[in-house]
């Protein structure tokens, strides 16, 4: 019996050692330890032994079984380790192939700039207001101190609408003379000033982004463009607040190193009026082609709200003052992204749009 045990153990040992796959190891397990395995059979054979022999022999059989199980585990582990090594050593991927890609869409530069501007002003405490683009002469010109024979109308070449039936203009509109038209495409976002102030008492602190229109088309003008109007009317506002707001806006939009400069100018609905220049981002103010060697770029018109405008909407100019400005968004986008022909903004060529 002892011989038999040793023989089977040796045999099994050799078989395990020669097993090179998990399947062969399993086969060996079944052969020796399975229900009808040969080592298992030894245990069943115990019954035939004399009772006195049983304890000693039982011990030997148990030892043989556990010995085989331990060998089995070692071999399983060894084969698993070999398989892992093989797997780690297999052919490498070409990691330089491009990843699985998804086409990405692009925002239009003007709409992106507009969103950024709205956010900047929201942080400065301005609410968003809005108004129609097809506008009455009354709000676009009259309420802003630009009557129909005023030379300031030359500053803004106006598109008029040709309607089969002209709707009734709002009360207070200038008298219609001949073919003169009352409905126009707003030439600036400033009519939102008048509309907002007519609809609420002070204080007013709004911005009004949107499309505006002028009959003009060349490298720096398109017949439609975008503005953001800013209006702040309250007690005790001065031109210092105008400068502060402009400065904060310019730094937020162009970066903290940008400088602003006010230059006296004229707009009928503000007084004092000022054009606002920012230091040229391309050359840092040293002078280059973009800024025509001046170091400055004109970006917007601004001023203190003309007391006549305040009185015209029923505010008391002795009690409240205000400042206002209108920013050309397309021009800002042009400066920010280095676009040199404004018209390319509205060609909508994807080779242009997909650069943003």
């Amino acid at each position, binding site marked *: 019996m002892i011989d038999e045990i040793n023989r089977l153990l040796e045999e099994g040992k050799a078989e395990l050692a020669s097993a090179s796959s998990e399947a062969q190891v399993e086969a060996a397990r079944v052969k020796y330890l399975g229900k009808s395995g040969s080592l298992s059979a030894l245990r069943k054979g115990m019954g035939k032994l004399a009772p006195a022999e049983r304890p000693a022999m039982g011990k030997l059989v148990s030892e043989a079984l556990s010995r085989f199980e331990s060998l089995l585990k070692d071999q399983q582990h060894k084969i698993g380790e070999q398989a892992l090594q093989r797997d780690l050593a297999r052919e490498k991927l070409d990691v330089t192939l491009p990843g699985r890609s998804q086409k990405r869409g692009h925002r239009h530069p003007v709409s992106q700039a507009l969103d950024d501007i709205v956010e900047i002003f929201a942080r400065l405490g301005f609410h968003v207001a809005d108004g129609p683009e097809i506008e009455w002469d009354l709000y676009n010109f009259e309420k802003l101190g630009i009557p129909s024979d005023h030379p300031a109308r030359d500053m803004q070449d106006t598109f008029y609408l040709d309607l089969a039936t002209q709707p009734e203009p709002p009360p207070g509109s200038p008298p219609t003379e001949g073919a003169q038209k009352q409905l126009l495409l707003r030439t600036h976002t400033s009519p939102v000033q008048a509309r907002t102030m007519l609809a609420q008492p002070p204080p007013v602190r709004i911005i009004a982004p949107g499309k505006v229109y002028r009959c003009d088309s060349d490298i720096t003008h398109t017949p439609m463009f975008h503005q953001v109007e800013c209006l702040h009317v309250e007690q005790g506002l001065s031109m210092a607040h105008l400068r502060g707001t402009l*400065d904060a806006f310019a730094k937020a939009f162009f970066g903290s190193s940008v400088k602003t400069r006010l230059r006296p100018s004229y707009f009928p609905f503000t007084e004092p009026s000022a054009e606002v220049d920012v230091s040229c981002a391309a050359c840092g103010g040293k002078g280059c082609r973009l800024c025509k060697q001046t170091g400055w770029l004109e970006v917007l018109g601004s001023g203190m709200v003309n007391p006549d405008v305040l009185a015209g909407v029923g505010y008391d100019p002795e009690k409240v003052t205000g400042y206002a400005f209108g920013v050309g968004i397309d021009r800002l986008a042009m400066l920010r992204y280095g676009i040199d022909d404004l018209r390319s903004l509205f060609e909508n060529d994807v080779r242009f749009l997909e650069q943003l």
Partner: protein
Amino acid sequence: MKLSLNWLRELCPVDLSDEEVARRLTLAGLEVEGTEKRALPAGVVAARVTVKTPIEGSDHLNLCQVDDGAGVHQVVCGAVNYAAGDLVPMARPGAVLPGGKEIKRARLRGVESEGMLCSARELGLGDDHSGLLMLPRETRPGTPLDALLGLPDTVLEINVTPNRPDALSHLGIARELSALTGVPINLPAQRLPHGLVIAAAARVDVEDAQRCPRYLARVIEGVQIAPSPLWLQERLRSCGIRPISNVVDATNLVLLELGHPLHAFDLDQLAGARIIVRRAHEGEPLTTLDGKERKLTADDLVIADGEKPVALAGVMGGQTSEVSSGTTRLLLESAVFEGAGIRRTARRQALHTEASHRYERGADEGMAAQAADRCAELIVQLAGGTVLPGVIDLYPSPRPAAHIWVRPARVSAILGATVDAVEVDKRLRSLGLEPMDGMPERRLWKAPSWRRDLTREIDCVEEIARQRGLDTIPVEVPKAGVGETAAVPPDRVATSAARAALSARGFDEVLNYSFVAERDLDALWPDEGAPRAMRVANPLTVEQGAMRWSLLAGLLRNLGHNLARGARELMLYELGRVYLAHPDPRHPRGLLSWPDHEPRRLSLALTGQAAKRWTSAPAALDFYDCKGAIEDVLAALAVPQIEYSLAPIATLHPASCASLTVDGTVAGFFGQLHPQVAKAFDLPAHTFVAELDWELLLGKARPERKLHGVPRFPGIERDLAFVVDESVLAARMLAAIRAAETFGLLEHVALFDVYKGAPVPEGKKSIAYRLSLRAADRTLTDAEADGIVTTIKEQLREVLGAAIRT
């Protein structure tokens, strides 16, 4: 306006560089937009042509012997307007003409030429290239041309804002410079004879004193018309005015110097030697100096003689009374016309002149006499003759000067900087205002006649700000009051989310003009009942003639533009307003809301094939790409109750057109372009579009999200494939599945496969769903799941005749 700095320095002799003058003017609100250096090339001198002989074999070239002071040279010349004895400019060899042409000794037609005789244009002096520039006969040969012309000079282009007619002259700018620097103005005074003699020579009547508040005339006799001296011609040219003759040039010189328009009539051509300022008769003709015959209206103001109109008042003279070579007697007009009337006439006649430009903005009534005297004196200097004693001056109601109360405290409050009474005093005086009354804290000022724009305190605040410089104003960020900090409004947040969804899907955003070609709008609707577009009365081109009532006209053009340039995969969107002739009653209107006639839309357009990628096969963009984008947008907005249904619309293919309903309201349409529309825009048949009503969707959006906890008990998933008639809609099946399960255990249904073809019978399709089943309060058993699946199978068999595919 163009400004000669040499001229400016005569009037206000400042000791500043050209650049510094330009900078100071710009920072005072007179923006210098450009600078032109006017100079002649070295080596251009006056030369006398002594002999002129035609060159044999040439029809236009002459060989000239020319004396340039240093010697006689032979020069070949092709001009025709000169004769032997004339003085002309000669560029010596080595001179470099404007444009970079260097003069060299050359052989022309075998003849040596030792220089070049020049026209005005060749010297960069003007546009005249009809012949050589003629120099005065008394000029000494060899004189550099610079000296004759008063060159070099610097000319500034100044942008004068419409409120500052006073700055439309060299005197006006000199006044500004004087106020800025303290250097006094240097303007020579005139002494002209007084008397009544003029009354016998001419008569003036003003019939419309409202439109012509002042009319002043002088008479000059015995003038001789000739070209002006070169220095004067150069002054005019440098300011953009073409020299004509000594008399006309004199009026223009005074216009540029003092800013007051003047007109010289040939007195002998004025019928009855009289002037009547009146309104034109309706339809009355007048041929103006530019040779155009104009039909006038009763609103136009004319200068008439005893018979007919002889000038369009304040705009342009007429031909009949034009100063010509034979003129000897002049009536010199120095009038003031009302601005608005001049503006109407100028616009009606599309005639914008130096005179109308100034009158429209408001002429200085106080300047009329001075301008007439200065001009009369200049004419006598240039053209000889004598000024008749006396002046006709019809000025029935002199314009009162504006008187303005100014409070230094108010000035300080507006500017946000302390400006004391002493400074206010100094600055207002420097601009010509005179203190009349009051105390330091509130003083009454009289505005000068040339500053008609100064009528209110705020006007003086602006003047003080300009003078001291806007850089003296402090920088102060206004504080936001408590609770006043604005947030980005919810509709902007929702819109940003939608844009992000479209960007993630690969859609590029476009921005089109709001006006499009009307035919493009018409082409969008190849059927009865097309919406009507509002037209632009004065479009720049017919391509921009109609206000869009759909964004698709622009988007389809964008597709075409990009396809023509080689794009293969196009996915575009635009979010913007459309303009409706008939307001949409679903949207609100009012003073601050107008979406009823300018609602926003979100439109998509896509066509082509996704680019080849090594990870996936290229696929043509189709209806479901379009719908997927819409679903993403709606998910970003979190709108409820979305339904899709097949609904015909003229723009779309009848087999591939869907309408979108949100919460029971139609909110847009999408699908494949109708073949006729695709053809009209020259686009592939497989072009897909969508147009959504953005106002409506924003109204339904629910930007606020609530988060729920995750389920605590495991669920069971079962896949089921049904075979149904091809005509059965997916939405119908989904509804039937949901209706079959009544215990609330069907958590989710996902359609994952649609299949037609063998072994599915002809006319049928297989649709497969994954059902997710879960109970909220316990672990669902397999037996329960089997029961639910069986119910669903039976229901679908009963309701839709669905068979189970195994």
